[in-house]
């Protein structure tokens, strides 16, 4: 089971490489509205009721949360957009991968 600490570490890893050190010191997305992120994640979960935090971690970070996590996520998002794997939330067209990330946030906050 991933913990809130894990998730924060994951989010840090999501920052682009050049800003990684900055992100590590100042924290990733200092202004992130956790309630809003949770609501978005819950909306995704409604459409994907079977997923648990564990399955999401396995999907999103199959090789861990190291420096290659971000490029992998980017590839996954691009592949989603190309394949029409879209999560539409209040009109926003997000990739399914982003929806899953928000879902993970919603489970761990």
């Amino acid at each position: 089971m991933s913990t809130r600490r894990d998730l924060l570490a994951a989010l840090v890893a999501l920052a682009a490489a050049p800003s990684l050190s900055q992100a590590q010191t100042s924290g990733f997305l200092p202004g992130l509205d956790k309630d809003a992120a949770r609501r978005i994640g819950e909306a995704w979960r409604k459409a994907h009721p079977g997923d648990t935090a564990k399955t999401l971690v396995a999907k999103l970070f199959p090789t861990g949360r190291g420096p290659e996590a971000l490029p992998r996520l980017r590839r996954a998002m691009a592949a989603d957009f190309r394949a029409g794997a879209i999560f539409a939330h209040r009109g926003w067209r997000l990739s399914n991968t982003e929806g899953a990330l928000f879902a993970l946030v919603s489970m761990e906050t």
Partner: protein
Amino acid sequence: MAIIDARTLPDASHLEADLVIIGGGLAGITLAKELAGGPLKVVVLESGGREMEPETQALYAGACVQKADGNKDRPLHEFPVQSRVRALGGSGHVWGGKCGPLDPADFAERAWIPYSGWPISREAMQPYYDRACDMLEIDRFPPERPNAAEASLQPLALDARDGFFPAPRLFARISGRTDRPAFDRFRTQFAEAPNIDVYLYANVVRIRRERNTITGLDIACLDGKRHKAKATRYVLATGGIENVRLLLASDNLGNRHDLVGRFFQGHVTYSNDSDAQREGSAFAASRAEPLDLYAPALRYGPHCVIGAGLAAQKRMKTGNFTATLFRANFSNADAKVAAETQTISKVSAQLDKGQAQPNLLGFFAMTEHFPHPESRITLDQSQKDALGMPRVNLTWVHGKKDYDDLERSIDGLAAAMGAAGEGRLCWSLRRDELLASSNASRHHMGTTRMHADPRKGVVDADGRLHEANNLYVAGSSVFPTSGIVNPTLTILALTIRLADHLKSEKKAA
């Protein structure tokens, strides 16, 4: 030679010329300017005076209803009178001056779009677009895109295979609304040429013909005077609605194949604001730099829209589509919706480009309005204007394909932007809200469409009526398809092309 008030002529005057231009709007004036100082004696017959006057403007009153797949009909009865100006200079009195050329795709015959294809290519139009730009005193639009200046403003880095591209738009100042002295020079100076006479308050109410030849025009003034005009050749340039009205009111002239008035196409824009349930139409750009190329600080400054080129259209099986970005205020949304919008855009910017601060913009969408035979102008014989002309009835139809393609194009653009890591698109309008949420532009196209085959078009590739050897039509009514860009630059370009044709015909004769 002069600008003359037709009401000051003796009743039943006979005007004679080599060429009569019916209508002194931007199209009619462009033609007269091109012929000014030449060998042809030209008469321009204009319904209005120099300024808008209620009595003349009332001649434009009619009825209009918009109909769209899965939407409630929308009556727009003021549209015929409010979407144009009946005075010397026509709608040039109020037009916004927004200009751009049609895209190469707009001219192409596209197998997935019924009735598509022009008998002219974009390439062949280039010299006429150049001359139209010169006439409107704006920079030319070179065919290569993006040009160096645009490239330096960093276009969105979308995958070229997706087929979206930055399509440029400029604003001309020659408009009654923007630069009155420049507009006044544009609409009057040409009449100083020795071969040009302009008659104001001269309403053409009937085009007479014998077999395939136009033999004369009946003119009516609102004070009761009646005149006649006769020429070797005639050009009808009364605008995309009135061209139809005059043809139909002249014993169905040009309508042997029941095409006159059909295929009305009008651009509309689609967008919405946020409400308690959803975000409005928005684009969250993932890059930190402002997107000046698309959303300059000056709202009515030169900019690009994101257009769907032929490759995109082929791939998505859609028509033309553009997204216009603009700087918008996002602070008024419902608190929850606003917070989610901020969160989504921050996270996607962080994921895409490692940016902490996304760039939120508003956008509106436009799609090509497909030619539809039931989208049409007819005459209401029970309603007549002060000159006894039947009023127009416009049924403006958007079919299922119009809306299917709009939604597919939005999804296609959202996917292209997301895949390229350039940002996320928000589009929350439901299908059944599209008509009510749309804004009608004042572009009237397609009603005397151009086609080489008389069974498929009212005018030929030169703009000549298939049914008459000496009557030409100028204006957006000849557009077979509407594209998306505002039509006036193309109206001028086609009119300049027509002027060349008329000059060469004269030489040959």
